[in-house]
């Protein structure tokens, strides 16, 4: 690490607000790692709030501010090609983060694989149903996808379809939730509950917000117990629902790990080194991390006991507030 840069500007551009992870996990993780690797470096953080044009603005602005490497989680994977080209024409390194940029080769790609995530939650649900001996003829699944205008949601959706295809359970209905808005998901789910009633044997929801909305719809319809509902992102709210037994699974992707990797790659690229890659995706050297599927069984292990940067992913205090204390106890969390 001798020839390493000591002062450079690196930008960290995140796509949206549909979950808090970017500000709670990704950015802090990235920043911490940067501090470690290059104390004199400056980090620019921006979030595009789901708007590709705004992301372009932020990208340009980062270059104006002298950023030499940009970690980009694209709002629109396809459209981001233009950003990559623009950066490379000015000698700026681009590290694709979280979502790939298929039509232009970035300098590097680090990610939890969104398509894989979709596949994991779907498959886990299918396995769970099989385990409980639910027959394909007993009913079918609801599928709640993310925003129809969000490219990442499209990837997850693809994964879910792949995951479900193996299970053999029919999809009763599916829905692209505008803007990932939970109330919309709830309204749709309520309608399906009226339509299909007991025929719903499970719900694949693409994130914890829409999953929680599906749970709320079942509760509101007076259906108890709630059929298994998936989630994604391991938000506190989602984990609490798992603790309470209302939600079946979620995906924990301790983003700090990927963020740290991105920081490492950035420094290496800036120092003129070639970071080593596990594989190549879309002509881009790639490092993929496997996210952890969280259910009630492994929640303690994956969330409380696993540490990132020396801290647990979530502390029992955060999760086990009064109403969830009992559930926590059952899972052996806390005390």
């Amino acid at each position: 690490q001798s020839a390493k840069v000591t002062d450079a500007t690196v930008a960290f551009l995140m796509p949206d607000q549909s979950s808090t992870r970017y500000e709670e996990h990704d950015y802090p993780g990235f920043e911490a790692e940067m501090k470690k690797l290059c104390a004199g470096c400056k980090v620019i953080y921006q979030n595009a709030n789901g708007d590709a044009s705004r992301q372009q603005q932020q990208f340009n602005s980062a270059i104006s501010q002298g950023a030499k490497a940009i970690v980009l989680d694209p709002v629109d994977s396809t459209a981001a090609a233009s950003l990559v080209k623009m950066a490379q024409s000015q000698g700026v390194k681009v590290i694709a983060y979280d979502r790939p940029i298929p039509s232009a080769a970035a300098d590097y790609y680090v990610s939890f694989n969104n398509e894989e995530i979709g596949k994991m939650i779907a498959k886990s649900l299918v396995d769970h149903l099989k385990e409980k001996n639910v027959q394909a003829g007993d009913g079918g699944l609801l599928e709640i996808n993310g925003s129809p205008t969000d490219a990442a949601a499209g990837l997850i959706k693809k994964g879910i379809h792949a995951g479900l295809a193996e299970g053999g359970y029919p999809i009763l209905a599916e829905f692209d939730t505008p803007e990932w808005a939970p109330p919309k998901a709830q309204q749709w789910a309520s309608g399906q509950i009226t339509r299909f009633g007991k025929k719903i044997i499970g719900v694949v929801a693409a994130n914890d917000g829409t999953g929680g909305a599906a749970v709320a719809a079942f509760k509101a319809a007076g259906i108890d117990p709630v059929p298994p509902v998936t989630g994604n992102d391991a938000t506190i709210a989602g984990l609490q629902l798992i603790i309470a037994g209302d939600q079946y699974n979620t995906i924990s992707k301790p983003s700090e790990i990927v963020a740290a990797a991105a920081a490492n790659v950035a420094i290496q690229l800036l120092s003129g080194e070639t970071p080593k890659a596990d594989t190549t995706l879309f002509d881009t050297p790639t490092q993929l991390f496997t996210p952890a599927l969280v259910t009630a069984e492994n929640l303690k292990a994956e969330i409380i006991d696993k540490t990132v940067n020396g801290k647990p992913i979530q502390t029992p205090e955060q999760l086990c507030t009064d109403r969830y204390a009992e559930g926590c106890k059952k899972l052996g969390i806390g005390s």
Partner: protein
Amino acid sequence: MTSDVKQTATLLDRGDVRVSHDAGIGATIRSSIDKVRSGDLGSLPVVVGLVIIWTVFGTLNPTFLSSNNLANLLFDASTVGVISLGIVCVLMVGEIDLSVGSISGFASAMVGMLWVNQGWPVAVAIIAAVLVGGLIGSLYALLFNRLGMPSFVSTLAGLLAVLGMQLYLLGATGSINLPYGSSLVNFGQLLVIPRPLAYLCALLPGVVMLISGYRAAQRRRQANLSSRSIGALVVRVAAITILLEFVVFYLNQDRGIPWMFALFVALAIVMNYALTRTQWGRSMAAVGGNREAARRAGINVRLIYTSAFVLCAMFAALGGVLAAARLASASQQAGTGDVNLNAIAAAVIGGTSLFGGRGSAYSALLGIIVIQSIASGLTMLDLSSALRYMITGAVLAIAVIVDSLARRSRVSHGRA
């Protein structure tokens, strides 16, 4: 010869020979038909639009008309409906509030924060959220009254700033779950009016109409004014009562009528009373119709604007709390998306003018039911997002075309 005015009628308001009048049940029906012909229908056209929507969706998927689904519809309509009531207030005075969505989201975040995370009693948390909403409204009023800042701009700025505050509140934790089984969540998801009580409530409007109608007729007769025939009144009351009792009966087949919807209707009734039967409501209409004339009549115009902005923001906050109760969660997405547009559109579809001076609290009720019916009807059909958007747009247009046609006919009959 001056007496030719008096000859035809001795009533104070029947002095003009150019006006044709009618009395008695038969004549009332006749004049109703006339009214329909000339397009003077109030909210009937929107109701017709609604019936068309219901018929079509009901045919495509009969579950749509199941009382269970209608109960869902009523739950969902209540949250944005309450927000829309506030929008009616600002539209009445010819202003707008683009930030109701953000305010509702912020209020839900506040309740989640104060109640769940800080352990405040739920009622106190709700009151605090609604009061903070009112505070935001009074800020808009201040900017409007003191600096003359157009409400479009100030509330657009508010939209962003309040959304920022919502994200800030939820920043550390993300969404906050409201506990299942708590009274607030039960209210938002489960509680319905006990069946006998519901039947009783459905009698109320008729009884009130009958008594007040009878009293008014009596007073008017005493004052030497024309009055509606009692027969026609009874017919109308009977019709309304039968309709309401049928609705209650139908909904009681399954879950029943949500308390949350009852709250919404009660608020709409109160607002309707306030807007039509109090000095404040009269002043609102006057300020919306001709601000300068209202000022010259000695109305405290600034106070009226302030009341409109504050009420709107408070309704928005309350709507946000109800939405959180319905979802059992205070989420970061709450209040974003099309909450603003839906709340405004509901009021406009129901017949409230965007340019002030014309509107009614019931327009929020009707409008939001139209919007929610479209949304709910589409959930019953398996459509791609693209189709769903296109159809929502088309159905929305159709629902309003009926009203527009009726209004045109009204204009050509000189009743605009």
